[in-house]
């Protein structure tokens, strides 16, 4: 196992140049997440148009895994419907599950990136179990934001 399996170029790139940074005025959904163990912090704003996420804004600080995961997540969910996003969340969670195999997560080993795009680079984290929490932070925060925003969506 080499350290480069964890720190793939895509991850380092998202860490250095995080996408969709910032905050939104009057977001339709918002949540904050933190990982007390290592101090990773994240704040997530979403703008919704009907059941579609049109804007994502993220602020935070933390390790390269937590920050790149957030950046890649923002790309993966922007423009998608809530239903599509639920599916991405489920696939991502399954991918990060140490017990599950990548194919069980619905990924295609022969076509890397075909299902989750850049996010598939985070698979390497599975070999560093203490870091899985870092990769998951953005996603638990997203789930929280969707729960908080649900009322708005339906109204």
């Amino acid at each position, binding site marked *: *196992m080499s*350290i480069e399996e964890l*720190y793939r170029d895509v991850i*380092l790139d998202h860490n250095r140049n995080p996408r969709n940074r910032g905050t939104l005025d009057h977001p339709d959904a918002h949540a904050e997440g933190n990982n007390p163990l*290592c101090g990773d912090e994240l704040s997530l704003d979403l703008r919704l148009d009907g059941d579609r996420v049109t804007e994502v804004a993220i602020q935070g600080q*933390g390790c*390269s895994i937590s920050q790149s995961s957030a950046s890649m997540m923002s790309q993966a969910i922007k423009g998608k419907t809530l239903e599509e996003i639920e599916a991405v969340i489920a696939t991502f969670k399954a991918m990060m599950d140490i017990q599950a195999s990548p194919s069980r997560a619905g990924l295609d080993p022969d076509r890397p990136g075909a299902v989750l795009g850049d996010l598939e680079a985070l698979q390497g984290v599975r070999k560093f179990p203490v870091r899985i929490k870092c990769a998951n932070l953005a996603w638990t925060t997203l789930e929280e934001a969707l729960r908080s925003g649900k009322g708005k969506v339906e109204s």
Partner: protein
Amino acid sequence: MTDFSHVRQDFPVLKRQIHGRPLVFLDSAASSQKPTQVLDVMDAAYRTYYANVHRGAYLLSEESTTAYEDARGKVARFINAGSRSEVVFTRGATTALNMVAFGWGMDHLSAGDKIMLTMMEHHANVVPWQLVARRTGAELVYLPMDADYQLDINRLPDLLDERIKVVSFTGMSNVTGTMPPVAEIARMARDQGALVGVDVAQLITHAPIDVQQFQADFVAFSGHKMLGPTGIGGLWGRPSLLEEMEPFEGGGEMISDVQLEGSTWAPVPHKFEAGTPPIVEAIGLGAAVDYLEKIGMDSVRRHGQELTGYALNRLSELPAVRVFGPADLTARGGVISFALGNVHPHDVATILDQEGIAVRAGHHCAKPLTRALGVPATVRVSFQVYNTRDDVDALIAGLRRVQEVFRVD
């Protein structure tokens, strides 16, 4: 340089390979490794004379009790206590600090009183006081840190007013390695009439300790950071303090008599040791003290200083490294916190782990301090008697590897 090369052989775990590399253990400030001499003494206790203490009228119990109380005597001598009854065995520094905060604070603090802590404290010396402040209405005051990572004792005369009832501060920071002038701070606080406590959880394993010279009222420490087992530590208290303090826990062992409507306490220190104590752990702590005394705490201090000086020098070879701590080796111990460019400490620690190097990344249970440093987290390396210059060299090579992966110049 003191020859410490033989010391390594005493620590079996140091023979381990981690991810195919020899272990370089640089996280002793979190918890130290244990020498064979401690492990053997504990093993022998369980195998040859173990029984409960202070209870049985039979030989094993007598032997266990003697070994347990002898361990107390060793700890007392190690910190130069006036007598062994001034040493209370606790679960560790955290428990010791809670014992005083609650056992003394609940009866002596009220609205309008102030508790003085410092910006450098471990949460163990912050949160118990916050809990007691909340219940008593007392306020918290924090002595700040200066630009040199020292406690700003010039501010003391200002801050120390007659409302300050207790001053509790660290003898050595577990983040910056800073060793404040304990006796001087204690004197100023005492002159103001405050109760004075020192958290020596780190100091006790980095420098000789003399509680009589400190002139404090209590000190707290943990066995596991000083080559002893987990689950044991101590509170040293001035006899008058221990007499007036209420027991923190009630139960067996700590009573003199129990009537239905109330009880009387066993004499100090046993009134603070409710229930069956960690007997073998205490005996193990005694063995750890023997081990440190055999090396000699002056040598331990010298070794720590030499290694720290060497490490600070070598770290300065890497322009991206920024050390958070005093440069003056006489005012600091063998704990070094730093940042490596913009690489998050957690990432540094993961890459170093792949090289077999164990370091700590985070806020080190001292969030007010890391916040004051202006960073969410630091990388921390810390030294013990078993560390060598080779360990420091491995660290530097590992940090170069981090720079490579993260393309830091």
